[in-house]
């Protein structure tokens, strides 16, 4: 089992008021699953994504990632887990504007301390994989939306992480470009990676093999399509 979440709760403190965002989720995800998490806004899907992505820790419950309990780690330990096990793809791409595509993709490898030559080789391979081998030295503002998202995917892939976590990856793209991006995810999945997709679009969720629907911080349904 790659991910094992048990009785996961997250409560935010807004002044004197406690706001429960996730109210007790149990879920397990196996290696090479292609899973979509859906839900309307306020359903707790962003909170769940932050916890699964090790950007945040739960208030209660446990989260075992790759047989390690990561629910009680400190900032720097979480940073290391994110660096080695998680690849993020965001709706707004989140590339560094001043750096070219290659440098953006190299970034996770810089923080894992790989030597320059090795980094460059791996980043180039990742960019080739998403079809951007010829645009490595372009900066984000010189690339189209679809290309930017492909750079982001290459960055997520480059460290060969346990999970690719994509948060509304097509939200800022037109539908044709969105389809291209989804095809890339399918190839990645076919290559043996585990993908977790956060979306509220049915047609995007349809690309996945399993759909988990959240409502008010709880799992409403969990259907396997195979």
């Amino acid at each position, binding site marked *: 089992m790659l991910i094992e979440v048990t009785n996961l709760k997250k409560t935010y403190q807004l002044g004197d008021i406690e706001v429960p965002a996730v109210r007790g989720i149990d879920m397990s995800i196996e290696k090479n699953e292609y899973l979509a998490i859906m839900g309307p806004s306020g359903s707790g899907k962003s909170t769940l994504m932050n916890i699964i992505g090790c950007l945040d820790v739960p208030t209660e419950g446990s989260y075992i990632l790759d047989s390690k309990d990561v629910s009680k780690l400190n900032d720097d330990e979480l940073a290391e887990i*994110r660096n080695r096990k998680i690849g993020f793809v965001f709706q707004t791409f989140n590339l560094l504007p001043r750096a070219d595509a290659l440098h953006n993709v190299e970034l996770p490898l810089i*923080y894992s301390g790989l030597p320059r030559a090795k980094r460059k080789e791996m980043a180039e391979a990742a960019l080739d994989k998403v079809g951007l081998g010829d645009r490595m030295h372009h900066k984000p503002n010189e690339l189209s939306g679809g290309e930017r998202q492909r750079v982001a995917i290459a960055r997520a892939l480059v460290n060969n992480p346990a999970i690719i976590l994509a948060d509304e990856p097509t939200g800022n793209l037109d539908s044709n470009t969105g389809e291209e991006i989804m095809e890339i995810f399918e190839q990645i999945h076919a290559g043996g990676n585990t993908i977790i997709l956060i979306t509220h679009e049915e047609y995007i969720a349809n690309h996945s093999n399993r759909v988990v629907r959240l409502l008010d911080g709880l799992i409403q349904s969990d259907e396997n399509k195979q």
Partner: protein
Amino acid sequence: MFDRFSLLGEYFVMAWMALKSHKMRSALTTLGILIGVTTIITIFTTIQGMNEYVIGELSNIGSSTVYVEKWPWVIRGDFWRYRNRKEVTYKEYEALAKYSKTADYISPAVWALRTVKYKNEVYERVPVLGTNEQYKDTDNVAPADGRFLTEMDVYRNHKVCVLGDEVAKNLFKDESPIGKRVKVGSDKYRVIGVNEKQGQVFGQSMDNYVLVPYGTFRRVMSGHRGMRISMTVSDVSKLEDMKDEIRGIMRKERKIRPEEEDDFAINQQDQLTQLYRDLTGTLFAIIFVIGGISLLVGGIGITNIMLVSVTERTKEIGIRKAIGARRRNILSQFIIESIAIASIGGIIGIILGYFGGSIVLSQMELNTGVSLSVIMVGFGFSSFVGVAAGFYPAWKAAKMNPIDSLHFE
């Protein structure tokens, strides 16, 4: 497990990219440091150049020679205490020569300004010194041509003289002065030697003099003031013994009671060196204050810009954290960026300050040397300011929450 040095290089690359994207802002921010470092390096270079010169010049005054005189060279405190002192006399010279066991050489010196003539050449206001044959050793002169005064010249009060290089050149041009007769004041003297050129000390020629035997001087010259007695010990370690001995002999000679202070001075080169060091020490303290203030102001400018930069780049920090940057990675990145801003100013400041110092020194006709310590001082100050100014903004960046900063617009 993790290659710190390859990362250090990355931080500089990141800093360079960040500074390049805000050229004007970076340039203005570094200006404060540039001015501070330029000031410090200019004065530092100047003082170093002067040091080399002054210490070199002072070493011309032998370190193993002391001078018994009426007044100390450097008077500290109440000047009036020295007012009623007696002149040093020939009798005291005789006592010192007779009783001193440590001194290897001793010479008296009395002087007056006289006009020196040879044929049609007239040279006015030349210091004429009456001394003995040991003056050669106490005051470090050597004959370049002819010979120096001998014991016999002094004993017999011969009408002979030894010329300083400048006097010889002025009066004789290309002619050899040896054996010629020159008129010093109202009397004629036979030139027996010309001394080696000694050059200048603090712009004053050391070769403008005429030496005559002490007794000759006494018989024919008037208007001289006090005497200076030079005493030399070959073994420098015995210098203090010699000074004690001189003090004892002088006090006895002058019948100074034990509770009374000395009414003569035993002067020595290190008094001047010490005076010079005190003066430059004060100057150094002033530069450090002035330079320190401008660096402080420059540093505050850097802190300010770094705080702005950290806020502007909240999203970048979020991205970096999301893909695995630890706190220390973010901290180092911003501190190095701050060091980079400060160092650019520092490097330009070192170069400008070096040129500034060279210009000041060339006005004084002194040489400028490139010294590692100047570069180290410039680098040291600017890097220190970089770290100090960047620490708070960098720490603020390092402890940002990745989720909030990712959603910052």
